């Protein structure tokens, strides 16, 4: 993807707070490119997902090609290239959670939100019609002692049952 080929509707730029954070970040590394992941995290927090405009902006900031940014974005599951819901619900489904019935939690969420599970290449599939929730499966969240677990945006919820899931969703 060369830069001319990217259709950029609305350009992206950091707001003042993120700009400050970025300025602090960039000084930590001997090469600018190394600030890639934290910069993308900042940008995603501001923009909601990584748009072509974000990639172009980050590429300019870090003095790398847009292709390089795209390369990184596609590698890591935490970066989204499509819009996601206001609340991203990550359901762990690796073995220890599976041994503690995470499937019940997942099925309950699917039914309750009336949505499928997002795949990495199709986030819309797991996003509710009102754009409020995106439901996805993730691998072990390093909380197997309190399995099954889910993460809603930045918060972890433990020892879940369908009733507790209802409670979590009601309190959002």
């Amino acid at each position: 993807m060369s830069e001319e080929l990217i259709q950029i509707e609305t350009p992206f730029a950091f707001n003042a707070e993120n700009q400050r954070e970025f300025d602090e970040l960039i000084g930590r590394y001997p090469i600018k490119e190394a600030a890639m992941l934290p910069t993308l995290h900042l940008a995603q927090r501001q923009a909601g997902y990584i748009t072509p405009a974000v990639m172009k902006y980050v590429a300019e900031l870090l003095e790398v090609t847009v292709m390089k940014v795209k390369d990184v974005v596609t590698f890591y599951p935490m970066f989204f290239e499509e819009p996601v819901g206001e609340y991203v619900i990550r359901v762990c489904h690796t073995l220890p959670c599976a041994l503690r019935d995470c499937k019940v939690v997942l099925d309950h969420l699917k039914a309750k939100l009336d949505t499928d599970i997002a795949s990495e290449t199709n986030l819309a599939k797991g996003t509710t019609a009102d754009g409020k929730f995106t439901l996805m499966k993730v691998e072990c969240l390093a909380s197997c002692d309190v399995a099954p677990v889910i993460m809603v945006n930045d918060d972890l919820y433990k020892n879940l049952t369908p009733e507790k899931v209802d409670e979590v969703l009601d309190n959002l």
Partner: protein
Amino acid sequence: MVEERRILYEHLDVPDINTFDVFRQYDGYTRFEKAIAEYQPEEIAQMVLDSGLKGRGGAGFSTGEKWSFVPRDIKPCYLCCNADESEPGTFSNRYVLEKNPHLLIEGILICCYAMGIETTYIYIRGEFTLGKKMLDAAIKEAYEKGYLGKDIRGTGLNVDIYSHPGAGAYICGEETGLIESLEGKRGQPRNKPPFPAVEGVFRKPTVVQNVETLCNLPFIVGNGVEWYTQMGPTYADTRFDPPKPDANTGTKLYCISGDVNEPGVYELDLGLTCTELIEVAGGLRGEEVKAVIPGGSSAPILTHYELDTRLDFTSLTLAKSMLGSGGIIVMNETRNIVDCLLNIMKFYAHESCGQCTPCRWGTPWVRDIVQRIADGNGRKDTITRPKFGVAENGRWGDTGETEEIYEDLDLLESVANNIANVDTMTWNTICVFGIAVSWPAVSYMRKFRPEFEATIREGKLVTLPVAEATVPPEENYAYQQRFVPKEFADL
């Protein structure tokens, strides 16, 4: 009953231990102060070597030895703290980061002093939002109190610590994957050598160390090597003349999950048995233990015949498994091993970084075979193949006999062994992720072959009773799947 010995986790539940002042009340940073006041950097490195501390992140490599490979004359040298805890079944680092981050900072300071390192990156898993928040707050406080930054406590020592978030890729836990990721690229592991100790992040010597490993350092310095080495068994490795001590010293943060009544992290001396650990964790949830995964999902499975295996680095290596990250997953009699393997293979198929062909294609292939078997569509044709096992010369090889095996089981084994061969311990891949795939695949299949066979035969998932699901060790070549030097086995 085995007692917990809390050292790293001793003050974990003290309210506000995450703040500098409270941490300080519990001897916080005094071990670092002792290190700089009483010892030269080389002496600290020697102490760590003598302590026998082994890396807690997965490979179990001697920390002191790793430090000795770092060239002292190339500067800058970096420390990367591996806080990318993502091995399924492992969750001990999370608690340190969330509850007691100053302990990690103190460990890092000691390592930096010993190795002449001025910059540390803590690569923290992207999902650990709370952990990162607590850690960042602790780092900020340590700067304010003069324990980080320039000229620490007037000693001329400069140390900077930065936290660096990952973004959800398991492979970034592999040390060279971590380094690539830290440099702002895809987290695709590098070929070794050169090892990170010689050429790591930004092409400079780099020490990569797990959170738990670093948290051991304050206690080694504070209480001395002698105190440290009395914990845990030390074996004699008789392959060397004179025998070399093979240390399994210190405590381990065992993470136990699955079918036990009280899953959690238990800090215990290395070297207790599976049975003892299950007992410590509130006993089994269910009637009988069917299987135990001893070291995170990458480790070969143990059957109910092997529950007296001691959970330390050496004993598990001799049992052809590994302690890995210390994530112990227990399965009771209701579990289906085919189903468990399917879950794990989905994980690996998802997490392969895609660099090497055997891993990129082989891992989904293994997953698909297991999926097919679990769905009841396993190929029922059988083939006759040479039977492998311990041959006459005592080594792994062709026994001269033949055996009948379902086509899909042979295929499963063959695909997995072509990613990484668990019998010869050679891998056709850049990193040992390959081994982490074929180890579970081959060990589950070989050890629980009756269950796999029943599932294929019946055309649906069949869960056999524990006694029938596996074959006794004497009759099962799975237990001899790897050549272990005789002298070592006699320990």
